[in-house]
């Protein structure tokens, strides 16, 4: 049940992922059940110790670490996408659940949304 917000865009370059995260925070603020699924290039959101001074943007890591505190119920990462981008628990932020099947995660939610 609840809404699954899917982030399939890398963290920098477009604002689509940030705006997707805002959607999740907004649902949580209204006490609506919401979880996030990172897939495709979007799994790079979950990389630990992102260094962004070179591009003059804030790291998304801090925003993301607030998700569970603000009431987002779960952070899922598509396992195949993580393998493709070399992400393993050691180089990922904490609190992420690996999803062997994104389709199954989507099936567990009544509403799925992408930011763009």
């Amino acid at each position, binding site marked *: 049940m609840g*809404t699954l917000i899917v982030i399939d865009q890398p963290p920098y370059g477009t*604002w*689509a992922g940030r*705006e997707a995260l*805002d*959607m999740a925070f*907004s*649902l949580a*603020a*209204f006490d*609506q059940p919401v979880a996030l699924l990172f897939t495709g290039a979007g799994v790079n959101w979950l990389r630990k110790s992102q260094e962004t001074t070179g591009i003059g943007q804030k790291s998304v890591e801090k925003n993301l670490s607030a998700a569970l505190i603000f009431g987002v119920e779960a952070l899922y990462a598509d396992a195949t996408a993580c393998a493709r981008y070399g992400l393993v628990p050691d180089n990922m932020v904490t609190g992420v659940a690996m999803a062997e099947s994104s389709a199954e995660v989507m099936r567990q939610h009544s*509403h799925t*949304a*992408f*930011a*763009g």
Partner: protein
Amino acid sequence: MATISLQNYTLVITGAPYSSQAPQTALSFARAAIAAGHTVDRVFLYGEGVHLASSLSAPPSDEPHWADQWSRFLSENAISGVACIASALRRGLTNDSEQKRYELPANNIREPFIIAGLGEWVEGTMASSRVLYFHGGD
């Protein structure tokens, strides 16, 4: 013909006019839905989609004017059109009160669109039986 249950839709547009097909596809969908007896609760513009609410777009006269077509459609059917305030202000779309707040030289929201928060989208997800997203895609 099989009977279909009537739905109440919230439409979310995240693709900009002229860079994507999203506003056009959403308008075709909305017209067809209403013609078939469904209702559209609201249209929410998010991300790049906020450009659809600009009163300053002026395409050549022999091209479709998506902002104009959408605003007429909303007015004729008394559907509320909302542009996300954070998306809008980032992209240079503003109303009278935000113009004053940020001391901007102009405002450019096209009637009947209004600027409001993501809470309007949340409310749409709760009030509608279906929420459809129209993305720019890539």
